[in-house]
């Protein structure tokens, strides 16, 4: 986009108010321009709101990057029956940690987005499905909803427009798969959270078999800023096909881990520098661009612009912009073994390739990491991935293969060392953030 030497600046929009005293309160939010976008939107034509979101180029922030306005446009014409907005606040992808701080510090950003979106798509009952394992976020959301009712932003005849909207905040109960949108809908209907066959897509038959829009927290929370500041403002950030700003979550062996809100297309090198670099005395080894479900990268990929197209072209996915960063002390086999255990644990069991495949992957990864594996096991890993990827019922199956395939491709000799040396060549204590002695355990063996 810009020439060499250009520095991408951070653009705190959603995170702008997080540092304020009692940032979660209605009054604080209102004093900083909150609900002005909703005021504007309620005076607009519904179709114009949808068009603005289409024109903004906003793409879903929950991982897949589907254009948000286009998704809303897929709803069939009003047939007089209910249609629903369901906010996906399940945030359980390993590495993802942006939606929870958003709802903790600024829940009204989301509620205002829900008001605008619901108005635009003709919904009078919206749901926020939040993972159950973060109680304080749930409290803040419930309070924000109560405040929005008290201030006339929810309920009947909102601000005298005749528009009615109820919001239910629903706590999940611990299951990663419930982040998958159709599993989420089943869960919200009081069932086991297992994915549904698509089509029909939720836009046609979603919650209670009615037309439904499912969007990520950050997608919906971005809507007020687009209405407030305009399409041109939003499209002035980002790259050709990846517009606007997004939260980049840096975690792991960096000096200042945390949330960095920046235009899409910022490079990992820039982000890493803002985060104070890799912890002192160490070098970058591997990282995930978009959570554990996206193929890992190394320091060869530090200049890949973090937008959907560039990350895809480089062989991974932008996903949820969750950069988990590991330094030279980290055993990649150990890291991937743990992610694999996660996918096995979270596989919902509905389809055989994923249920059986993740079981075998985990078994082989464990064997390799503990030095009981063979060279043939490494090939067996790839073969097992072959029988999962593209054959599973939902994207969780494919996701389970991403760290395995990418790590074997990039670090095959490290896998082989586990075999030839009959154990893991790394000291886990060296990766930890505190000092401890990992030897005594071995002494008993």
């Amino acid at each position, binding site marked *: 986009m810009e020439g060499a030497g250009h520095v991408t600046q951070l653009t705190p929009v959603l*995170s702008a108010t997080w540092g304020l*005293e009692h940032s979660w309160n209605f009054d604080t939010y209102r004093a900083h321009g909150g609900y002005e976008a909703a005021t504007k939107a309620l005076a607009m034509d519904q179709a114009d709101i949808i068009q603005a979101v289409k024109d903004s180029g906003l793409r879903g922030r929950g991982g897949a990057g589907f254009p948000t306005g286009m998704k809303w446009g897929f709803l069939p014409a009003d047939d007089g029956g209910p249609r629903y907005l369901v906010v996906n606040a399940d945030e359980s992808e*390993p590495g993802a940690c942006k939606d929870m701080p958003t709802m*903790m510090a600024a829940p009204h950003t989301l509620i205002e987005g829900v008001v605008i979106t619901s108005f635009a798509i003709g919904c009078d009952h919206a749901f926020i499905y939040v993972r159950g*394992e*973060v109680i*304080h976020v749930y409290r803040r959301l419930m309070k924000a909803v109560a405040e929005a009712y008290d201030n006339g932003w929810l309920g009947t005849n909102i601000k005298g427009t005749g528009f009615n909207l109820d919001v239910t905040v629903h706590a999940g109960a611990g299951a990663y798969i419930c982040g998958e949108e159709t599993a989420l809908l089943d869960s919200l209907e009081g069932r086991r959270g297992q994915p549904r066959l698509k089509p029909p897509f939720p836009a046609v038959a979603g919650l209670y078999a009615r037309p439904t829009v499912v969007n990520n927290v950050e997608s919906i929370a971005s809507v007020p800023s687009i209405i407030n500041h305009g399409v041109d403002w939003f499209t002035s950030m980002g790259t050709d096909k990846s517009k606007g700003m997004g939260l980049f979550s840096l975690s792991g062996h960096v000096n200042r881990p945390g949330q960095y809100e920046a235009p899409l297309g910022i490079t990992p090198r820039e982000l890493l520098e803002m985060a104070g670099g890799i912890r002192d005395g160490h070098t970058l080894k591997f990282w995930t661009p978009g959570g554990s479900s996206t193929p890992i990268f190394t320091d060869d990929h530090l200049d890949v612009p973090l937008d959907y197209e560039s990350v895809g072209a480089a062989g991974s996915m932008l996903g949820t912009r969750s950069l988990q960063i590991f330094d030279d002390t980290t055993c990649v086999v150990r890291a991937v073994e743990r992610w694999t255990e996660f996918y096995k644990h979270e596989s919902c069991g509905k389809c055989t390739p994923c249920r059986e495949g993740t079981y075998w992957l985990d078994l082989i990864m464990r064997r390799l990491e503990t030095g009981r594996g063979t060279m043939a096991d490494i090939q067996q890993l790839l073969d097992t991935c072959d029988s999962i990827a593209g054959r599973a019922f939902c994207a969780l199956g494919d996701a389970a293969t991403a760290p395995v395939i990418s790590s074997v491709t990039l670090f095959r000799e490290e896998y082989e060392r586990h075999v030839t040396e009959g154990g893991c060549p790394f000291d886990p204590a060296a990766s930890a*953030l*505190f000092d401890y002695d990992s030897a005594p*355990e071995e002494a008993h063996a």
Partner: protein
Amino acid sequence: MTYDESTAKLLAKDAAEIFARYPVRRSALLPLLHLVQSVDGYVSPDGIQFCAEQLDLSSAEVSAVATFYTQYKRRPNGEYQLGVCTNTLCAVMGGDEIWRQLSERVGVGHDETTADGKISLERLECNAGCDYAPVMMVNWEFFDNMTPESALQLVDDILAGKDLVPTRGADKVVSFKEASRVLAGFDDGRADEGVSAGRPSLAGLDKAKEQGWKGQDT
């Protein structure tokens, strides 16, 4: 149904409040299961029976749902549920060692509870706090940037009857049963307690301020 009359009455009243939140009654099942955990400390046979009656389902149907989700406990849970994130990022940053020392100290393993019913331990998957690794959760409140020492201190404090104070959460950790009631959607009035955000959540904001970048302006 073996709940005594007053418990049954209270549960029915709460259940009615939950039903009112949904256009279709069955959607109340997850909050109802959190609710029965708030009474029994786990999803008890009574609790399953109660949900089944309320929703006109068989108890097998309710069990099938309850067993799908890790937050619903099949055995009486401890007053404090100590979870250590052992997903990759936290594990590598020290979560594995925290787990090892904690489990050794408390004397129970994953998904087990001490004989006195005080403490349950659990290995957690990523809890959406990776920028605060290593992370622990106590009754689903955030305990950030943990070490083995700070983890063992939690055990000492529990045994000494002291309150536990989360890093980003309420002023004190409420009991497992009380937390379950909140998750059933019943406000405990603690939303205004605690911080807006921890330092890592503000890292980008701090950087932008330091550099004079004004992304929020138009």
